[in-house]
């Protein structure tokens, strides 16, 4: 074996070690979720769940407000995704295909506004909904999420639309398509990956968000899953098995979506980042 090949195998080993380090916390969460209590609360770790049990999951599901909060999360995410994709697409169409007064200002705002941290805006947002008596309603949360995902979605979709040459549409129209027809036959299929990528983005943001939901949704029955997870920690300590089961359940939908659509996300979000 050549020295070069040996070195390469050495690098392989380092990379595998890094992989194990990165993945171990997730392994530990999932296996803890499947372990009985006496295998969790032990001074010598039990590395492999040899006595797997679903007790922790049953406990997590039986935790107050689990199903309420699952439903809330689903409602909030669906509303956010459906509305934001529609609004972002229209806005992207405007900035990608039209020249109009104020266009540069809109583009600048779309970038600039993403710099403002959520934790800074949570105060006025809370006071705003408080004065409208909308605190503890899902509507308030959906509206807030919309505003937070729209700039990025609009910007990304704009990129997709800009990349469809206007000539292609014009060609379709000379061939007898109506303007709407040309749009749906030519532009829409090419922009579809962008719509998928931005929808997933909105889904993940809304599903994962914590702070706004924590502040705006006061009662247990109105909360989302990320806020619900705190219910495993009481003054008596933390129910680690239950928390890991709850965390696994909370993370699962995102991981499934992410893995299923990873190709779109990667290509949609990092395409061209190097060219220039």
């Amino acid at each position, binding site marked *: 074996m050549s020295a070069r090949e040996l070195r390469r195998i050495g690098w392989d080993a380092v990379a595998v070690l890094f992989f194990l380090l990165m993945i171990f916390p997730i392994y530990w969460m999932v296996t803890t979720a499947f372990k009985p209590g006496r295998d969790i609360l032990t001074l010598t770790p039990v590395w492999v769940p040899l006595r797997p049990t679903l007790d922790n999951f049953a406990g997590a599901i039986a935790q107050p407000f689990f199903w309420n909060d699952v439903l809330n999360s689903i409602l909030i995410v669906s509303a956010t995704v459906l509305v934001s994709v529609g609004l972002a697409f229209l*806005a992207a169409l405007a900035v990608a295909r039209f020249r109009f007064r104020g266009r540069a200002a809109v583009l600048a705002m779309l970038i600039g506004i993403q710099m403002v*941290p*959520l934790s800074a805006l949570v105060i006025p947002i809370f006071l705003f909904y408080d004065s409208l008596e909308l605190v503890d309603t899902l509507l308030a949360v959906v509206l807030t999420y919309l505003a937070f995902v729209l700039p990025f979605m609009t910007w990304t979709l704009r990129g997709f639309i800009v990349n469809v040459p206007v000539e292609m549409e014009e060609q379709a129209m000379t061939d007898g398509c109506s303007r709407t027809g040309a749009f749906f036959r030519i532009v829409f299929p090419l922009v579809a990956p962008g719509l998928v990528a931005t929808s997933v983005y909105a889904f993940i943001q809304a599903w994962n968000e914590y702070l706004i939901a924590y502040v705006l949704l006061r009662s247990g029955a109105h909360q989302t899953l990320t806020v619900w997870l705190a219910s495993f920690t009481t003054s008596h300590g933390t129910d680690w098995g239950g928390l890991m089961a709850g965390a696994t359940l909370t993370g699962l939908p995102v991981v499934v979506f992410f893995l299923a659509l990873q190709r779109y996300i990667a290509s949609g979000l990092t395409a061209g980042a190097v060219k220039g």
Partner: protein
Amino acid sequence: MNPASAAAAAGHGRLAKSTLLRPWAWRPSAGATPYFLLAPALLVLAGVLLYPLASLLALSFQHYGLRQLIAHSGEWVGLDNYATALRDGFFWKVVLRTAAFAAVNVALTMVVGTLIALLLERVHRPVRVLVTAGLVLVWATPVVVAVDLWQWMFDFEFGVINWLLTHIGFGDYIHHNWFANPLQGFAVITVVVVWGALPFVVITLSAGLSQVPRDLIEAAEVDGANPLYVFWFVVAPILRPVFVILATLSTIWDFKVFDQVWIMLNQRPAADYFLLGIYSFSESFRVTQYGLGAALAVILVVLLAGATSGYVRHYMGQLGEEAS
């Protein structure tokens, strides 16, 4: 606010420049159409982002306590909140801590991310696929879930980390409470932040590295350049735009870290754990001093804007070119 936004923004910005932008040629005066298309999105943004931003600024000039909260109207006090904050030694400590925390986290993320991306260039394909799959899994893990699982890993009683450190021979970590000492506590939080940030950085840098022409690197190697030299003088300059974007994004995220501290310390972080975002939140929602909290939030936004101004200018310049 999100992993990929600016990277994508950068990409599309550049693509857009090379693409001919034209109004609908067959309809010279578009008239009101773009405004109709924009209206719904702008309405939401104005209502839920711009209006709160303006009222945050207004709030920072008011005394807004419990009584004002009930009355839904604050008392104007001019610059009092800022004066209170700036005169307080604790405030400066928090600012310094926030900056130091962000600096350490950004540096670690970028250095480790770069090393791993370079490592992935040198391994066999199956190993690269394996590592990438692992990274994607970590990337997909929600922050709240990540904090909870690390909290469990670092638990003082049954945490696996304490056991590992003790048995590998780093000393006695049995029943070691990581959060008794803020420096160690922040080390744990740094682990959580960097672990969560690495996938995006590594995957983006790997994509960047794969675009560096191989013959350039080989030419340098033939000329006798060592790997460090090749990286510094051949690869790094080509990747500069990617580095700038990633560093800026990391700065934005690490400056405004909130969830990691808040959840890790069971929603009751001690004053030793206050970063600017936590401090602002705590003044508002715990102490019910919304005015002072707002002033702190404004300072956070200004500091963040300062820290990322180069990047913002870069984009504004690009937009200017495009608009002309």
